[in-house]
């Protein structure tokens, strides 16, 4: 049942998602985007830009004419005029009028951006160092979205980068077409900013705040964005991917996600051997922990503690679980992001890798029990 689901979904996705638009290495301007907001914003941008161009031509034109005509080498005599109230009034009032002309469309456009009423779907977007979490409110679906492994592998390699380098994730956000989607944007640690240019949505994700933004996309598509607020070391490595699919595909995707959650709960009941845990643990560690604690477990002095020889990784298991599941100062909580199997595996791995050799095992059930006990 599940696999049929998966296969049909893959087919659907493959059929409906246009390949990401050709990248243009000489792209020099905003794009119109795909929502009414983004198109209005683009229009406004070009409108103001043209006004600036006209003013520029007049001002710089006058300057260049003057630099050509009124140079001493042409034998001109400097005239000595230096005041004209009339002129001053003209170039105070005319620009003020132009500004008023700009203010009207700008106000209208801003009001549209702020109109978050009557949304049909709420998605809570949470910024973490350095990944995004998406929770579909009332749908029982929540997941994290990290930079894809493919991009991570390219960062330090000398090979040519792929077209979607640093703009692809492991789990994209999926939203339905023709639906007003409201984003409730917040953050768990520092300030981030959730930005998808083609939708013209940019909202700061601030701890303790829930900011609202919205979009409505009519055609299926695939859009990328990036975190726009400096949020620490890997600020440049937490992209956003949005897939817009038809409402039917969206529903089946939700079903798929719910089924995944059920499968995870089932797996958490099993018992694993230490080798299985170590194998899985290394994968989890490299994906989620190495950014701070480094692949060799040595950490970054003064910023991120080493795991090798760490008093916590070599101490009480309860404290170790607490640190990983609930986080610490500068350490994100992983209790929600990792499955119980992954948590058990990475804890077991940290206790036995990098020369820690504790020899003990943490099973998924231990993690589940620990979380229930809290």
């Amino acid at each position, binding site marked *: 049942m599940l696999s049929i689901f998966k296969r049909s979904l893959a087919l659907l996705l493959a059929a409906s998602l246009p390949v990401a638009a050709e990248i243009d290495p000489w792209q020099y301007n905003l794009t119109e985007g795909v929502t009414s907001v983004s198109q209005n914003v683009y229009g406004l941008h070009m409108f103001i*830009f043209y006004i600036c161009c006209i003013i520029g031509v007049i001002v710089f034109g006058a300057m260049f004419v003057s630099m050509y005509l009124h140079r001493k080498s042409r034998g001109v005599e400097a005239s000595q005029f230096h005041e004209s109230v009339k*002129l001053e009034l003209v170039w105070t009032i005319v620009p003020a009028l132009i*500004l008023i002309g700009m203010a009207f469309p700008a106000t209208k456009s*801003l009001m549209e951006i702020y109109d978050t009423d009557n949304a049909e779907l709420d998605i809570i977007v949470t910024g973490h160092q350095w990944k995004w979490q998406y929770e579909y409110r009332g749908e029982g679906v929540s997941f994290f979205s990290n930079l894809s492994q493919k991009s991570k592998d390219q960062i330090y*390699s000398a090979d040519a980068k792929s077209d979607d380098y640093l703009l692809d994730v492991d789990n994209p956000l999926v939203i339905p077409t023709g639906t007003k989607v409201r984003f409730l944007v917040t953050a768990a640690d520092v300030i981030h900013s959730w930005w998808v240019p083609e939708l013209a949505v940019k*909202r700061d994700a*601030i701890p*303790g*705040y829930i900011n609202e933004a919205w979009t409505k996309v009519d055609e299926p598509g695939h859009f990328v964005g990036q975190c726009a607020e400096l949020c620490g070391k890997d600020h440049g490595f937490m992209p956003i991917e949005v897939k817009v699919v038809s409402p039917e595909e969206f529903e089946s995707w939700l079903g798929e996600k719910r089924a995944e959650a059920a499968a995870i709960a089932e797996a958490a009941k099993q018992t694993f051997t230490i080798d299985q845990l170590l194998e899985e643990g290394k994968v989890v560690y490299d994906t989620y922990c190495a950014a701070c604690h480094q692949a060799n477990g040595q950490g970054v002095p*003064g910023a991120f503690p080493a795991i090798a020889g760490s008093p916590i990784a070599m101490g009480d298991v309860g404290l170790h679980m607490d640190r990983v599941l609930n986080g610490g100062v500068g350490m994100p909580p992983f209790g929600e992001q990792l499955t119980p199997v992954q948590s058990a595996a990475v804890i077991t791995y940290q206790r036995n890798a990098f020369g820690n050799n504790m020899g003990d095992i943490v099973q998924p059930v231990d993690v589940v029990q620990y979380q229930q006990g809290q």
Partner: protein
Amino acid sequence: MAHGPAKGFSRWLYTTNHKDIGSMYLWFSFAMFFLGGIFALVIRAELFQPGMQIVDPNFFNQMTTMHGLVMVFGAVMPAFVGLANWMVPMMIGAPDMALPRMNNWSFWILPFAFAMLASTLFMEGGAPNFGWTFYAPLSTTYAPASVTFFIFAVHIMGASSIMGSINIIATILNMRAPGMTLMKMPLFVWTWLITAYLLIAVMPVLAGVVTMMLMDIHFGTSFFDAAGGGDPVLFQHVFWFFGHPEVYIMILPAFGVVSAIIPTFARKPLFGYSSMVYATASIAFLSFIVWAHHMFTVGIPLLGELFFMYATMLIAVPTGVKVFNWVTTMWKGAMTFETPMLFSIAFVILFTIGGFSGLMLAIAPVDFQYHDTYFVVAHFHYVLVPGAIFSITAAVYYWLPKWCGKMYDETLGKTHFWLAFAGLNITFFPMHFSGLAYMPRRIPDYNVAFANWNMISSVGAFLFGAAQVLFLYIIIRTIVSGKKATDQVWEGATGLEWSVPSPAPYHTFSTPPEVK
């Protein structure tokens, strides 16, 4: 005139002479300009192509942070204070600054502040890495331990600026020569008077915000920590209440410099002197009510957003007045294009381009697309580099003959200008494009779509850096072996500073001149 300077190092350590202190400020800021420039070149080298090649992301963040801090607080601000020290007393016919001992103190604490700031690069955990805007909680809960030294350094810089400003205000208000009424003061003096008031108003706010950080980090308060009932957005409001006037602090004296140079080389009085004074004052006033335009995406309510958008757009009016006045000053003059004039004309053109992008950024709905992209980086570098830096450079070429009594080499000066002009535009113009193509700022690595523009920017940056080395050479060469300068120096120069010999004697205007 009874005695000259003391000899040796103690001359500089103990000096209360405005010219000595002015020179020290200028040399210090020049050194900081190179330090900040090296940081910038590390950034541009890493961004030369996609992928991480030279530094790691954390060090990259330290570079962007230190580049901004050093350039703003170490290069631009002290340079303008140095110019004020040298020129304000000479322009108003005063024998020295009003508070000479404090003057010595306000300079000498600066090297210590910057030595402390630079030393954080060698500390465990590294230098501040949270951007020159140091938004909490990245700069508090999540900051490296060196943040405490950063806070202390900022306090010292603030104290230095406040003392410098008090001194400038006291000098201008009390020590003008008889007949030098306020509305006869050179525009450089006017712009500095207004700048000094801005500094006194906002430096304590900066001190306040870093103190709140200190409390959060070490004394268990939660001003900016949401988990403790604090508010990270409060940080931004307080920071930008300082930060916006701060950007005008860096540009108003530049307006003054250019308003001195263009009339000289156009051989024609400044057009619209009094409207220039009023425009400066209006810009200063407006600078206090526009701070949240740096925060259009933080989620302030619609009405607030509209208010800050309208107020910001208004700034275009007095700024436009200034540009129109400069152009009209040139109109029907008899212009020559010596190096200071070239830098000043480039100032007017490129600063205006920065003003255009500023106007675009003021439009809140569109700012949602521009905010925190390279478009913003392009914008503020267009107002700061050809704005502040070019005007300081122009000022140095313009007054150097008066300071050291010798003339710089005009061919070398012009070469410097064209190299810097090319370097600047090659570096920063493409940033408009990468920003509009949606490249976020402050990222150490990027998608291939941005590769071309970044490569061009990096090439330009190294060219610009090389041009500044030439500048250093030109200055040293002038001081060592320049041709003797006349007292008047420039054919069209007017003003008290040109009525004293070149080089200006150690003490000038011991008896006040008569101003008619």
